[in-house]
């Protein structure tokens, strides 16, 4: 296999909470690789650490209260992003690694035209003149399928719909043709038809520009349609990783099973949607042993006391669950 473009090793991002209620270990030992040209889905519930992971890659965690623990390692093209000087890091941000944010409503500056904002990265990294930047902004708007790009370029964010703003956000991120695009819930704030359009757009742009996409979402439906591989996160850790077809066919972690069971399906009529009981615990007090055990239907004594490592289940499939070593227990839920 080719060399990974981005290699995250044992990433730990902690937040010191106020009034001494402890340290929130939002991301607690996450490792994964992103290969050139692939789409990697990162899935999990709210509070599982997906967004903090993505922000950590570009070191956009607000410090204080947050900090990335020493020993964490994020390698991009042979360099550790966590030890780069601010100027070197800025040269990568928006240029080599770009980001699309969740909320197109608030991620655009209300006092500038969208053209100015799309051109910003090109002005910063390529020193484009105002005129050239404007031309580039129109090109980018055309690329992301904005109707009337020559006119829209002078519009302010509030004049655009949510879907159009997300297109603008994507245009902003792609203006320097980055090698990695981090898309943090790019479709969550949009309605379903627009979601499909934006995902198609991302797929098309990936084919045309050949970038790798790190797609963060809580929606397995989104992952199924777009990602090549999936990383499932729970409680600040990677609990399962596999290729998308493998994950959907043979989920190894009870959490993934629960997530899959919770997806509403049109082909099997069901009166009530299934949900995983309970919710993600607070990041200040992860449970001892396996962090999922309080919500797990299979949990037994071992799960309460000792924390499983990521266990290899074959075919590039890994799961952080003792069931991998004792598959017989799966047939008899406790």
């Amino acid at each position, binding site marked *: 296999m080719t060399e990974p473009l981005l290699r995250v090793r044992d990433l730990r991002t902690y937040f010191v909470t106020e009034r001494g209620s402890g340290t929130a270990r939002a991301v607690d030992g996450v490792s994964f690789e992103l290969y050139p040209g692939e789409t990697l889905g990162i899935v999990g519930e709210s509070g599982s650490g997906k967004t903090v992971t993505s922000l950590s890659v570009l070191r956009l965690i607000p410090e204080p209260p947050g900090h990335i623990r020493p020993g964490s390692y994020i390698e991009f093209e042979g360099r550790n992003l966590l030890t780069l000087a601010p100027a070197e890091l800025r040269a990568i*941000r*928006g240029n080599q690694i770009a980001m699309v944010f969740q909320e197109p409503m608030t991620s655009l500056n209300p006092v500038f035209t969208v053209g100015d904002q799309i051109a*910003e990265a090109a002005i*910063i990294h390529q020193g484009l003149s105002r005129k050239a930047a404007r031309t580039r902004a129109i090109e980018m708007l055309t690329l992301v399928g904005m109707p009337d790009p020559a006119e829209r370029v002078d519009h302010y964010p509030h004049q655009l719909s949510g879907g159009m703003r997300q297109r603008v956000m994507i245009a902003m991120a792609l203006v320097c043709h980055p090698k990695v695009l981090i898309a943090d819930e790019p479709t969550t704030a949009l309605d379903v038809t627009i979601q499909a359009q934006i995902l198609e757009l991302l797929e098309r742009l990936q084919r045309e520009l050949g970038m790798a996409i790190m797609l963060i979402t809580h929606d397995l439906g989104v992952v199924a349609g777009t990602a090549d591989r999936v990383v499932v996160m729970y409680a600040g850790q990677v609990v399962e990783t596999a290729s998308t077809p493998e994950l959907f066919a043979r989920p190894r972690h009870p959490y993934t099973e629960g997530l899959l069971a919770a997806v509403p399906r049109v082909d099997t009529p069901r009166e009530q949607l299934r949900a995983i009981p309970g919710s993600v615990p607070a990041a200040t007090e992860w449970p001892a042993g396996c962090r999922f055990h309080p919500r797990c239907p299979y949990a037994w004594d071992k799960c309460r006391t000792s924390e499983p490592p990521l266990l290899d289940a074959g075919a590039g499939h890994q799961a952080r669950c003792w069931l991998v070593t004792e598959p017989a227990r799966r047939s008899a839920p406790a």
Partner: protein
Amino acid sequence: MNLRAWLALLGALGVAWLAARAARRRAAGTAGGRRFFASPFAGLGVGVLAFFAVVAVAAPVVAPFQPDRQLDIIELVNRGPSWAHPLGTDLYSRDMWSRLVYGARVSLGIGALAMAVALTLGAAVGAAAGYFRRATDVVLMRLVDVGLAMPRLFLLIVAAAVWQHVSLGALILILGVTGWFGTSRLVRAEVLTLRERDFVTAARALGARPGRIIFRHVLPNVASPLLVSAALGIGNVMLTEAALSFLGIGVRPPTASWGNMIADGAGQIVAAPWTTLFPGLAIALVVMALNATGDALRDALAARPSSYEEET
């Protein structure tokens, strides 16, 4: 006062009226503009400011005499208003109207320029404190506390006493340098909330350096409260300048400013009340106009976020 000067005065009034009307017509096109002119005093305020601005710019045309020319030290001392001297003459037989016109240049100029200095300093300090926080914030804000704790007039009197002769430029600087404390607090508070906004994170993700983020993404979003505070602040600066000049440490005679015109007239306030009344009236008018404009601006701009959401 000759026909030319009367015509010029009429012309200035006409230009001011036209300017206010044009502003109103343009404003009618936007929701914010309509809110601005919803207050009946806003139009009046803009008109008064436009009038004094025109008069100050066109002073040589509008003023019938040189402001410091003593016309006739025997016959024309402390004369009341007449057709030739609409605002009368002062103790030194100078034409009050001409002095008022040239004084507008000085008083308005000092007000605007000192405010510009104060805004620049206040915005820079407030933005730095709010954006970088931590030690920067603590040091700068304690500095501001000290500045706010000192009576400003006292500081100015000390400055004037230390340097004996204070030139116009120095006076503007001093007024500006002692006038930014409140602005910096206002800007800091705004920046503290803005720096947490998603578009600031987005700008950082694009690789923008802190300076670019502050000047391009944060400060333009502070523009509206800053504008309001500037409009209200200019009046305050003008009053301070008047007070200083009245105390004899502001604008030095024979240069006319509205403050030192009042000082000149104070001695014969009973015998020749017009020598204090008219410059006092001018100050009051301009300050009231600035306050009316500032209030209307605040009403127009404060409503923006809600209307912004309506549109989205």
